[in-house]
């Protein structure tokens, strides 16, 4: 990313590779999350294309069963933990401080550490392909299949890789929670926070309370595999893993979708030129989804044998989640209702999001009809359902966010023509790929099967799905080209290209290192909009005349004398987070190959980690540095 340093903004933007390695700037870390996730997205997408090629015909021979099992496992694992979650983290990193009017997140170095550990775990997971085989037990890693073949390190990569991603996410979440609860600008009460940031808070809570449970399960899996413990085999019960996994895995679903819902809740008001309809209801429904998301994990286990009472209870609880979800959808439609809907690219993707998410949500309701789920569970119907939610919802939402905020990141628009191609091809390809899977699943095609016989009536729709998946592939190549090209050659956007409502549009594009020349004082939801517009007696927005040129809007808080003149303190760059993360990743590699030579590697990793952690906490501090 190229930043314009010619303006007299202070402090200056450092440049060079080393400045990226030692950066603690939330915007740069957000960028790195985004780029890493995008690369992983293309890798996981390629895996999906191989899967689709294999399934295009009955008895497909393009992949062996072994290769197929690795690819579908890694596709799921990568998409969920290394793509969608980090893309969420990318947006959160970049926009939480901007949304609440802060200079940075609470712990910039811990934030850098989270990213580097995420990167280390990502590299670890992907390296498994060439180091003994990738995990092949499904992304849910059901025991005792996942603990069965101790000869292979594949599921050790899963146990350790996911563990490291979890640690990184817990730290990032604690960071975001501390940031939002303690570093908001004056006047930025909780009920004035932009919805995206609210959803980020909910997501952080979900992660911080669900990941430790998963962590325990992963440790148990790892011990069962390597130290002969009996958590899931012997006298142990395989269902324990399923509980621990889904106690994390279900909140995780909301971790994936809530940021996208937050993004869409930002975009729809801007392009409808109306405030979000029922802001408190949208916020509270998000919180309600978070709470309820913790109470329905067992709906992934209807066929596992919980007993009819538990199945009925979880079935009803699951249905109830549809209520707050519906509230969000109605409020988005309510926002457009009576507005001036502009069909800019972010809005197109947001409309696509709402429309497709409705389908995914409704097929989710059919799962809560427990007996119906006895048929649908682990069939392609489920695959269709969660792709409508996570791709039709999540990815559409995130892409909408990318088109919306690209001008803020780079100061330039993404190309509209290419964007339109991207949108329509993606919409077409997506529906061609995943809508037929509903039919396949209802007609009995199970998931995770590397081949199927002839005469089962699955050939045609599988071919359609394969064609669709390549259309999606093409659409994302266009997107990638657009990102690369527009970064330097796009139309210049200026600080507030969409006539935005939230604080990030009040500063230059790209934002200066310190974000805000002065910390804004907030008086409204959508405070920036209220600085630009008043309402007439009919309630229509009226642009205020004293606004200078529609660009940078001066706040009127500078001269009130209540804040003493002071130097701007930005956190110092540090390489210790990278050292510590490298150390932990090394420990992880050691544990994968433990016992034996792995212990040596783990020992070396521990020393590196200690170097990083002690260096980090004992690093001579610049006196004026007040951040951790």
């Amino acid at each position, binding site marked *: 990313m190229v930043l314009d340093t010619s303006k007299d903004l*202070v*402090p200056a933007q*450092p440049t060079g590779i080393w400045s990226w390695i030692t950066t603690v700037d939330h915007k740069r870390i957000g960028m790195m999350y985004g780029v890493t996730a995008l690369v992983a997205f293309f890798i996981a997408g390629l895996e999906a294309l191989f899967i689709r090629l294999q399934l295009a015909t009955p008895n497909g021979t393009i992949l062996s069963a072994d290769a197929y099992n690795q690819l579908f496992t890694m596709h799921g694992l990568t998409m969920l933990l290394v793509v969608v979650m980090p893309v969420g983290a990318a947006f959160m990193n970049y926009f939480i401080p901007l949304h609440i009017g*802060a*200079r940075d997140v*609470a*712990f910039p*170095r811990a934030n850098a550490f989270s990213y580097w550990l995420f990167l280390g775990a990502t590299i670890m997971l992907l390296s498994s392909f060439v180091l003994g085989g990738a995990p092949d037990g499904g992304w849910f890693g059901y025991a005792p299949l996942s603990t069965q073949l101790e000869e292979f390190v594949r599921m050790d990569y899963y146990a350790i890789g996911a563990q490291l991603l979890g640690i990184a996410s*817990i730290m990032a*979440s*604690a*960071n975001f*929670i*501390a*940031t939002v609860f*303690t*570093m908001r600008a*004056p006047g930025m009460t909780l009920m004035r926070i932009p919805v995206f940031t609210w959803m980020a808070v909910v997501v952080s809570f979900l992660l*911080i*309370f*669900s990941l*430790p*449970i998963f962590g*325990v*399960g992963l*440790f*148990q899996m790892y*011990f069962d595999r390597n130290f*002969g*413990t*009996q*958590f899931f085999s*012997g*006298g*142990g019960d395989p269902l*324990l893993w399923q509980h*621990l996994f889904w*106690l994390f895995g279900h909140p995780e679903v909301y971790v994936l979708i809530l940021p996208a819902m937050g993004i869409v809740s930002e975009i729809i008001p801007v392009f409808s030129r109306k405030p979000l309809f029922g802001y408190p209801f949208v916020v509270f429904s998000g919180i309600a989804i978070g709470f309820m998301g913790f109470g329905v994990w067992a709906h992934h286990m209807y066929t596992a044998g919980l007993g009819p009472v538990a199945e009925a209870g979880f079935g009803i609880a699951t249905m109830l989640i549809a209520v707050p979800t519906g509230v969000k959808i109605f409020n988005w439609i309510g926002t457009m209702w009576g507005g001036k809907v502009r069909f800019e690219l972010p809005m197109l993707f947001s409309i696509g999001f709402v429309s497709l998410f409705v389908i995914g949500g409704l097929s989710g309701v059919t799962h809560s009809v427990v007996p119906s789920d006895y048929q649908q569970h682990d069939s392609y119907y489920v695959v269709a359902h969660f792709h409508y939610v996570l791709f039709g919802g999540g990815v559409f939402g995130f892409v909408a966010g990318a088109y919306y905020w690209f001008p803020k990141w780079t100061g330039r628009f993404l190309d509209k023509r290419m964007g339109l191609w991207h949108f329509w091809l993606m919409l077409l390809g997506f529906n061609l790929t995943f809508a037929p899977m509903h039919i396949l699943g209802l007609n009995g095609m199970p998931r995770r099967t590397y081949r199927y016989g002839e005469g089962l009536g699955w050939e045609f729709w599988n071919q359609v799905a394969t064609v669709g998946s390549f259309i999606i592939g093409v659409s994302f190549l266009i997107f990638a080209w657009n990102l690369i090209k527009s970064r330097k050659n796009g139309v210049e956007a200026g600080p507030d290209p969409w006539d935005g409502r939230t604080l990030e549009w009040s500063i230059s594009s790209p934002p200066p290192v*310190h974000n805000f*020349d*002065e*910390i804004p004082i907030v008086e409204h939801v959508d405070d920036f909009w209220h600085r630009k517009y008043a309402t007439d007696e009919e309630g229509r927005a009226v642009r205020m005349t004293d606004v200078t040129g529609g660009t940078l809007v001066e706040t009127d808080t*500078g001269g009130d004398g209540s*804040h*003493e003149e*002071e*130097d*701007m*303190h930005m*956190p*110092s*760059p540090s390489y210790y987070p990278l050292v510590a993360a490298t150390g932990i990743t090394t420990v992880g590699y050691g544990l994968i190959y433990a016992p034996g030579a792995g212990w040596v590697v783990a020992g070396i990793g521990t020393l590196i980690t200690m170097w990083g952690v*002690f260096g*980090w*906490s*004992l690093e001579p*501090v610049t006196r*004026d540095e*007040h951040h*951790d």
Partner: protein
Amino acid sequence: MTSQSAPVEVHDHHDIKPIRKAAMWVFLGSECMFFGSMIATFLLYRNETADGPGAEIFDIPFTSASSFILLMSSLTMVLAHNAFENRDPRATRIWLLATAMLGTTFLAGQVFEFTEFVHKGLTLSTSSFGSAFYMLTGFHGAHVAIGVLMLMTMFYLSFSGRLFDDRGLNVELVGLYWHFVDIVWIVIFTVVYLLQV
């Protein structure tokens, strides 16, 4: 990064102390889930002894003594914190050391206890009971060990006079962590030992 003259900033608004404490508390809430999962695992497998040793091998008087030692380390820890707040390096140093010693004693007791149990035939792989017991108490022990390490770091800092510098780690945060490790043991002692005999 050097700072230069800049427009007004509302700097004092973000005192780092409460920010750190908020993060620490939410982290401790997260740890509740971590230990809760292991305690639930133990409860599930409390009778899955596979004809091997079960809770009858526990030596309650011994564990009571080491539990009491850990409990009292919370007292010394809070006294260390009190001295830290009063900017009294000598008292801080003494109480930190006392806390670390008590923690080390607890760890030594745990090592002794584990050795005894292994001799009596209970290992990680004997039964689901053994797996759950060692995992729970072992992870707790690891937390105590990390706590001792942090206490000793603070102790070391007290000599170089940097104890009161404002850095990532300080006596208050170490104290919160240490007390948390103690309260987890309060639950473990009840659930794993007292309720099983």
